[in-house]
Every structure is written in structure tokens, then in C-alpha cells.
């Protein structure tokens, strides 16, 4: 029985990962979710957070800033605006992300302020999470 699914992570600039995984943890806009083989077909947007693919070859984790995930019964495709392998996450990268989120909040039009604030708080959570 096939209990793995094909996990693809693509960013606009390149393909970051394409592996078999048994489960994929996705930071969805409405809460984290874990996709396993046989998951109902779903499309969800992402919030800034940690994306984790656990598979026979080990675990791969990425920090993603936004985008969306397409989940099917036998595959998960994540289109992330920016994805950074967790191992490459350093203080400066995170600080840059926070700075960028702050700038976006500053220039966001009135009706998008709430969304930008949410993004900022997610990025802050990501940073504090990574520090431990």
C-alpha cells in the first residue's frame, strides 16, 4: 500500500524539494494541518511558518513566508513565495523578514492593515520559535 505522497516545494526562482514523504506539516492560513496519503483534495493559503516534510529519507523543514499549498491524495505541491531551509535560518535572515513585514505594514492600505499585522505577528512568532 502506498502510504507516501509526492512532496514538491517550488519557489518562483527554483524547485527546492521533490521527495517522497509520509506526512507534510503545513502552516495553513486557518491553522496548521498535516497532510498524509489519501488526504482530501484541498487548496489552502499559507501564513509565515515552518513547513515540514517527514519521509523515509528523513525530515526536511523550511521556513515559508506565504503562498499556497495544493494537497491531493498522492501529492502535495507547495508554492511558496519564499522558502528557506531551516538549517540556513540565521538571526539576520529572520530579522530581515521582520523588517520587511514591518515595512509592508507601514505602506499597507487601510483595508489590508489587519492582514499585514497578522503577517507581522506570524513572522515574529517564527523568529522567536527559531531562537529556541
Amino acid at each position, binding site marked *: 500500500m502506498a502510504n507516501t505522497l509526492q512532496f514538491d516545494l517550488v519557489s518562483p526562482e527554483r524547485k527546492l524539494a521533490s521527495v517522497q514523504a509520509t506526512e507534510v506539516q503545513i502552516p495553513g492560513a*486557518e491553522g496548521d494541518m498535516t497532510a498524509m496519503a489519501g488526504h*482530501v483534495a484541498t487548496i*489552502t*493559503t499559507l501564513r509565515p511558518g515552518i513547513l515540514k516534510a517527514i519521509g523515509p529519507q528523513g525530515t526536511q523543514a523550511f521556513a515559508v513566508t506565504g503562498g499556497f499549498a495544493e494537497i491531493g491524495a498522492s501529492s502535495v505541491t507547495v508554492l511558496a513565495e519564499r522558502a528557506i531551509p531551516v538549517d540556513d535560518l540565521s538571526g539576520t535572515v529572520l530579522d530581515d523578514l521582520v523588517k520587511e513585514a514591518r515595512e509592508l505594514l507601514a505602506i499597507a492600505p487601510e483595508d489590508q492593515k489587519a492582514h499585514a499585522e497578522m503577517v507581522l505577528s506570524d513572522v515574529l512568532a517564527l523568529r522567536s520559535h527559531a531562537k529556541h
Partner: protein
Amino acid sequence: MPSLKDLKNRITSVKNTRKITKAMQMVAAAKLRRAQEAAEAARPYADRMNAVIAGLAASVGGSNGAPRLLAGTGADKVHLLKVHLLVVMTSERGLCGGFNTTIVRLVRAKANELLAAGKTVKILTVGKKGREQLRRDFGDHFVGHVDMAEVKRVGYANAQDIAREIFARFEAGEFDVATIFFNRFQSVISQIPTAQQIIPAQPVETSEVSALYDYEPSEEAILADLLPRGVATQIFTALLENGASEQGARMSAMDNATRNAGDMINKLTIQYNRSRQAAITKELIEIISGAEAL
């Protein structure tokens, strides 16, 4: 009749020119390979993005709640005076054959057509070469410029910056329709100037059934989130295609220049040898006729 020395100098100078154009051709070839790889790498993302947007647009598009990026501002229904924003993508450097001229020609034709139809045209230039060429005819229509001179390698961040600038203008109600102009890379010798409408979005027709998906959050919310990303992705693709086209155009232009320089060297060398021979013959005749006179 130029002197022998002049000819010699001329030959040396053309030889130097040939060396330079040859070097530029090789640099362009190397850059072209990198640009093509970048364009290749960006394709999966753009393809998925377009497919998902097309699926969503097909199911949400008809309803009243469709986002303005998809449905448009409705200006065309209220009155005929639409404001068009033309985003012109050209290179920062010259010496790339007809690369910039072909884009500018397309923009000029489009702008004249729109103006003749009584619409307002605004132009946003990316890359300074197009700006220079358009300034004389359409200088009054310029609304902004994005400088790419400092950008060594086009990244998604550049596309996002351009997209943000366009959205800010869209939100402010400065225009109703946005079209990007760029060269689509076909091969080293052929680049196709292309006009692509990005706002309102024109999703590709899809036969894929999208209703099978669960959407989280709602379809409308996802579409509203994705459309700006889709526009940024289209701009990014255009930038990459343009980058590859520029290098391709430069490569063939420099190849031609190298060949022309070679031809010119041959012609000048023949001329040089002829006049050298003529000088020798003349001296011989002088010596012989001098000897005969004795």
C-alpha cells in the same frame, strides 16, 4: 587614396574592435545560458500558479464578489474612457541589436491605437533604453520608471517591487487596464515582442475540473490572495524572458559585428597590399627609367 600608414592603423583598429565584439559575444553566450536556466527553473511555479488561478477564476469569476483585479474597475461599462497603463520592459544596456527597438515599435503602435480610440495612455518604463526611445513621442505619458541598472541578477523580489508599484497605482484608481510589453524568448536569433494584459487578469482557459478541491479559507479569499501573486509571477516570468532575449539578441548582434569586422579586415588588407605593391612598382619604374636615361 589613404597612405600606407593610415591603412595600417585602420586595420589595427578594426582588429581591436573585432576582439571586443568577440568577447562581448562570448560573455552574452554565458549569460544567456544562465538566463535560460533561470527561466526554466521558474516555469513550474508559474505553471501551477496559473492553473490554480484559472481554476478558481472559472468558479468565482461570474459572481459579483469577484475581486477587482479579475473583474476590472468596470470603467468600460460606465464610459468608454479607459485609462491604460503600459509597462514597457527593455534593457539597461545597448548593443543588443533590435531588441529594444522591436519592443518600442510594438508599444508605439499600441499607444497610438489607444490614443486614436480616445483612451488615456500612461507609460511605466522598466529599463532605461526603452525610456530613451519613447521619450520624444510619449514623454508626456510617462508616469514612472523602474531602474534595473543596479540589478545583477533578476530575482523574484524585483518582480514584487514592480508589482507593488503597479498595485499602488491601481488602488489609487490611476488606471483600469495594465499591459506588460516584453520580448518572449524563442531562440538566439528570434525573440518575439509580446503584449500581455495583467490587470484585469486574463486567466488561461482550462479544461481542468477544479470543483474537486476543498478550499481553505473560502474560494474568494484564496483568489483575492492569489491574484496579486499571479500578477507578480507574470511580471517575474516576463523579466526572465526579457533577460534571456536580451542576451540572445546581443549574442547574435555581436556575432554579426564580429563577422563584419572580419570582412572589413580582409578588404582593408587587400587594399593595403595593393597600394604597397603599387608603391614598389612605381619605385622600380623610376629606377629603371633613370638607368635607361644614362
